[in-house]
């Protein structure tokens, strides 16, 4: 019986030509994909097939055709064994209001295969890690949205899973709550050593937390690659001054640099198309000569949004410019 394979060697999740049809719609269309351990972002438009894929990986939904293997298990046929090693956090609140966090998470632990004593011990530990102090003994009904999301994360890691599936974990949280939850997810993935697949619409979060990305659209794989490839530097240098943008633009053009028409807040930034080398010193000296207040010098960077931006006219100028220029530069420091 295939036990949980050593997470570091074989791919964690292997999907081959996976298809899932619903009456009238093809949710997944011959998807082929390998996911290695790490924090993997899963992005896609509404209805792209994200939650269908998560359900199939959990063994809660049978694939119409194709092969799926998670940590050596076939989810649909060996679901109950697999799910002892998988944690799941749904995108909607799913907690009963009349029990305390301790009671609920301990029961959840047992339902995932932990003996009663181990479940109780790990519950206390895990609730501390997600930052629930003495409220853990009060009924969940009285918790704030932030605390509820933490309990939902706790119930997903109480049984020390090898793989954690998170569906929009920061849904409904305010900015402070979102930062804390992202910090927790990052710690869970790095410090706790649990592989994570994180489905989300908030691309800023995905860029901040994930080291790999899988983009699907219309049930098909759009692109799967390490995050660095998605946010590689573009061939554009953005220079921003507190005021006097037009004189700066004229000055830079005078020094032979190719200026693109404004894309950002037009009144403050100048965007320079880089043909080969990056003229850092030319920019510095021009601004110094003109005595303008320089507040930003930044290499343009692809963003995940470009995946979704294809049909928006406003962006075409920037995209066209980027394509022409290979992303090189005299001192390619770490893409901070």
């Amino acid at each position, binding site marked *: 019986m295939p036990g949980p394979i050593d997470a570091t060697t074989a791919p964690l999740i292997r999907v081959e030509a996976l298809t899932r049809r619903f009456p009238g719609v093809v949710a997944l269309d011959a998807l082929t994909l390998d996911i290695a351990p790490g924090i993997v972002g899963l992005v896609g438009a509404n209805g792209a097939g994200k939650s269908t894929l998560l359900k199939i990986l959990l063994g809660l939904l049978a694939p119409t055709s194709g092969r799926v293997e998670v940590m050596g298990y076939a989810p649909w046929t060996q*679901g109950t064994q697999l799910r*002892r*090693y998988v944690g799941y956090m749904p995108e909607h609140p799913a907690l009963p209001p009349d029990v305390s966090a301790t009671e609920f998470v301990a029961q959840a632990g047992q*339902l995932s295969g932990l003996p009663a004593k181990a479940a109780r011990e*790990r519950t206390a530990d895990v609730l501390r890690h997600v930052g629930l102090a003495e409220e853990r003994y009060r009924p969940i009904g009285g918790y704030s949205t932030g605390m509820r999301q933490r309990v939902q994360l706790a119930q997903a890691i109480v*049984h020390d899973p090898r793989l954690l599936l998170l569906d929009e974990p920061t849904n409904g949280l305010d900015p402070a709550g979102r930062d804390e939850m992202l910090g927790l997810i990052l710690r869970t993935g790095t*410090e706790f050593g649990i592989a994570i697949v994180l489905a989300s619409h908030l691309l800023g979060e995905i860029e901040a937390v994930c080291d790999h990305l899988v983009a699907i659209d219309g049930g098909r794989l759009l692109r799967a690659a390490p995050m660095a490839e998605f946010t590689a530097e573009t061939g554009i240098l953005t220079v921003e001054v507190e005021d006097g943008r037009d004189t700066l633009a004229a000055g830079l053009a005078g020094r032979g640099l190719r200026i693109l028409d404004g894309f950002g807040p037009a009144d403050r930034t100048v965007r320079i198309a880089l043909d080969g080398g990056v003229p850092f010193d030319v920019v510095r000296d021009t601004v110094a000569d003109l005595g303008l207040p320089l507040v930003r010098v930044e290499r343009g960077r692809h963003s995940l949004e470009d995946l979704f931006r294809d049909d928006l006219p406003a962006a075409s100028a920037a995209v066209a410019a980027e394509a022409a220029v290979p992303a090189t530069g005299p001192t390619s420091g770490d893409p901070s």
Partner: protein
Amino acid sequence: MTAGGDRVSAGPGPAGSIYDIGYRGYDGPRLGRRHAFSTLFVGGLRATFGLGRSGRAKIVPAFCVALPAITAVVIVALGAFASRFGISDLGVIPGHPDMAGSVGVFATILVAVQAPELLGRDVRYRVLSLYFSRALLREDYALAKLAALGAAVMAMLLLPHVILTIGAVLLTTDVLGALGREAGYWPAILGSTALTAAATAGVALAVAAFIARRAYATVAIFGVFVVPGIIAAVVITLELGAASRYLVLLDLGTVLDAANAWLFGVAPTAGIWPVTGLPVSLGLVAAIAIALGSGVILVQRYRTIAA
């Protein structure tokens, strides 16, 4: 990580050490479906009796457990009083068969109120998605709840019989004889309480599984227990032809009464079963069919319910 388990020596060893209280993995045994099933079963059992819940949740279960037990105690007291003063013609002191017949109504109340409590909350607050993403199948969830409610009802039904037996044994000096007589009843007692528990819990959960709002579910369960009885009664009293007699098989109360009659080997007392002239064994078969049928409906519903 330095092992700090043993006695910290006062000698030249390290004066103090910092232990890693960070996240620890778990490499102990990981149990399977059976453990998950028993966890849900125990949880369901506690919930049925309102243990671990607010006081309000304990009222109905306490009421349903106490009353039958009190009636049994009264009967034993009556018996004691009669034998003490040598009054023999107190009329037939109700024994196990009568107890089995009369206590069924409390089972109905308990399941009608507690079945929605066991199922409704997990559906309304979408907790099912957390349950189904664990080491159990959807059927396990439904069967665990059925087993929990069934066990709770059976325990409640058995209590009065136990009291009667203890009473009977204590009342006479001929302990062995009393024990012998009582032992004769117990196969029927076990059969009757198990059947009543399975049938009432099954029907109640099968109805509650389709109705999310607790108030409507309770009313619907009472309806399912009561309305067929009314219809059967009206139709049968009107003697609308032989076929209509079988309508009585829809009325769980009367069917269980007939089943008890078969088990205890007595004539069906209450209800309209005698009027129909049907064999009591048919009642037994019908009761079993209802219990199994409702169980299948419950499991099928939870195979497809949206999580």
